[in-house]
């Protein structure tokens, strides 16, 4: 598998190079994710059946380090179920899910998967509405999330800087002390993305990040995702074809249909595929 130059650089930074700062291929933190083969996520032969109905049917997919992958597909294609499987909400009936080479996601619960470095944005924005914007980001911040360390947690100035950087990135600095429940729909979506970034995940899963956004907000979200490209691996599930075209660029697009991969390739390639046109674009 070939990688973008940016992705390759990132693959190195994700592994620890030791104090000398050498590139760390093959010398991975024992507890961290091993991405030495260039892929951050492998789904192999995933099947999920609900009372005989196969929401996912032998789905196989892998995502490269630093890649921004768009996943499209008609309603009921299994996009959200796939995210549920990756994040531990749903256990697959069959198949394997690996994060890097070494972390078997089917053995972990939601919190452990999040801790391992996978962040998820839901279709409907879910932020903590009774907490301020600041507190939402503070809660999400990567750190020991055990009971005792949470009770005695104090923000270091470094951590405060990280929060203020993220606020600037998601353009919510003026809203810092506002209750998240009072934000507009688009702002909530950004806050949720900001929360994901505070987790410093290696892989971000975004379920319809522009659903319900105005055109201006959609465009801004596209810019935001493009800024993240290369720093994180991203998987974006989306309905909005214009938006997919905006962010996919030369990257790969995967089309799901009835729980399996129907086609994979660049946006232009996929759009030209007659089967894709039939099941999805043609409707």
């Amino acid at each position, binding site marked *: 598998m070939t990688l973008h130059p940016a992705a390759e650089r990132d693959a190195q930074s994700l592994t620890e190079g030791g104090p000398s700062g050498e590139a760390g291929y093959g010398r991975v933190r024992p507890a961290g994710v091993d991405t030495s083969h260039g892929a951050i996520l492998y789904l192999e032969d995933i099947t999920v059946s609900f009372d005989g109905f196969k929401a996912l049917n032998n789905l196989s997919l892998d995502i490269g380090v630093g890649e921004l992958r768009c996943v499209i597909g008609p309603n009921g294609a299994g996009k959200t179920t796939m995210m549920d499987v990756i*994040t531990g909400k749903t256990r697959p009936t069959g198949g394997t899910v690996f994060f890097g080479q070494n972390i078997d996601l089917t053995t972990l619960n939601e919190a452990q998967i999040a801790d391992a470095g996978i962040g998820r944005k839901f279709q409907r924005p*879910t932020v903590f509405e009774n907490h301020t914007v600041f507190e939402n980001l503070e809660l999400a911040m990567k750190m020991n*999330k*055990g*009971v005792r360390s*949470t009770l005695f947690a104090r923000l270091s100035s470094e951590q405060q800087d990280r929060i203020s950087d993220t606020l600037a990135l998601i*353009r919510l600095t003026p809203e810092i002390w506002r209750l998240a429940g009072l934000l507009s729909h688009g702002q909530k979506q950004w806050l949720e993305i900001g929360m994901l970034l505070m987790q410093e995940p290696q892989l971000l899963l975004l379920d319809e990040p522009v659903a319900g956004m105005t055109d201006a907000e959609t465009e801004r979200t596209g810019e935001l995702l493009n*800024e993240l490209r290369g720093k994180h691996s991203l998987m974006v599930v989306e309905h909005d074809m214009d938006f997919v075209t905006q962010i996919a660029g030369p990257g790969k697009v995967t089309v799901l249909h009835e729980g399996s991969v129907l086609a994979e390739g660049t946006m232009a390639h996929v759009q030209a595929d007659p089967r894709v046109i039939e099941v999805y674009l043609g409707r």
Partner: protein
Amino acid sequence: MNQAATLAAPPSLHPALMTRRSLFSPQAWLGLLVAVAFLAVLPMANLVFAPDHPLHISSYAVALLGKFMCYALAALALDLVWGYAGILSLGHGLFFALGGYAHGMYLMRSIGRDGVYQSDLPDFMVFLNWKTYPWYWWGTEHFAYAWFLVLFVPGLLAFLFGYFAFRSRIKGVYFSIITQALTYAAMLLFFRNDTGFGGNNGFTDFKRILGFDITAASTRAGLYWITLAVLFGALILARVITQSKLGRVLTAVRDSESRLRFIGYDPLGFKLFVWTLSAVLCGIAGALYVPQVGIINPGEMSTENSIEMVIWVATGGRGTLIGPIIGAGAVNGLKTWFTSVLPEYWLYCLGLIFVLVTLFLPQGIVGLVRRIMRHREERRV
């Protein structure tokens, strides 16, 4: 563009953080200390002034207030789990009673031979033909060990029950119903004569505590002051916890537990922590209640008692800490008055309070006060 935005990040972020993290505002501290000082002085009016003096306060009133403070402590404990973590318990009466029973047994055993049957064994054991103490009452003649049980038994039960319930992700009304069923089962167990808890009479006729005459005005005042101090300490502790990051995680559990999981927190530990702490505080409340009221019986585990606690919290203001304390005082004050005037209608009145609070005061008394203050401020502006 992003770079420009990053550079424009406000330098004022850090000072703003500093001012937000104090325990109480200066006004709140002042109000709190005045209230504590006022409550602390009341028993003096009982001890110092003669009964015919206009400033005299009856022993009955002191005991009543002491009882209310125990209720307030239980309400505070319930608010920690319900108001903050969103776990509605309809079984806090159980933890209250367990603390009460553990302390009550010490009080029974310190009666010595002054009981009705003038035996070394407590009256109920003679009456029910028990010859020796069952294993779970071993060592309860020691005050310190009895207090260990006061903390340990409700805590252990809550921990075990909570662990299995939270691990199975039992939530909402299902959890509430199970807590109520558990409490009811415990009540039936305690009602039985053969389980060693004194049957339906429970423990009563206490004579002394740590050698002090339990009916003496000075002992009563002492118990009152201890209760006040414990209540104040529990309020500070609860405030420290709810103001910490852990407190914010708890409210996140309440508002969106699944989101919390997906950002890497396992809610189990957090729920278990606050649930167990709440049970322990409630046990302490029960233990302080028993010597002041002079009796503990299985009636404390009745469904109504646990539900009444919920009403205290709701009336005062869920999720506000000071609210449940006010609510426990207000509802019980009303109850005292009502049961002396129209005793048969009290339950209707209680139901009415709950309906009215739910409909018109979702934030309870504290919410109402806040609303009035905000309204005033707006008018001034």
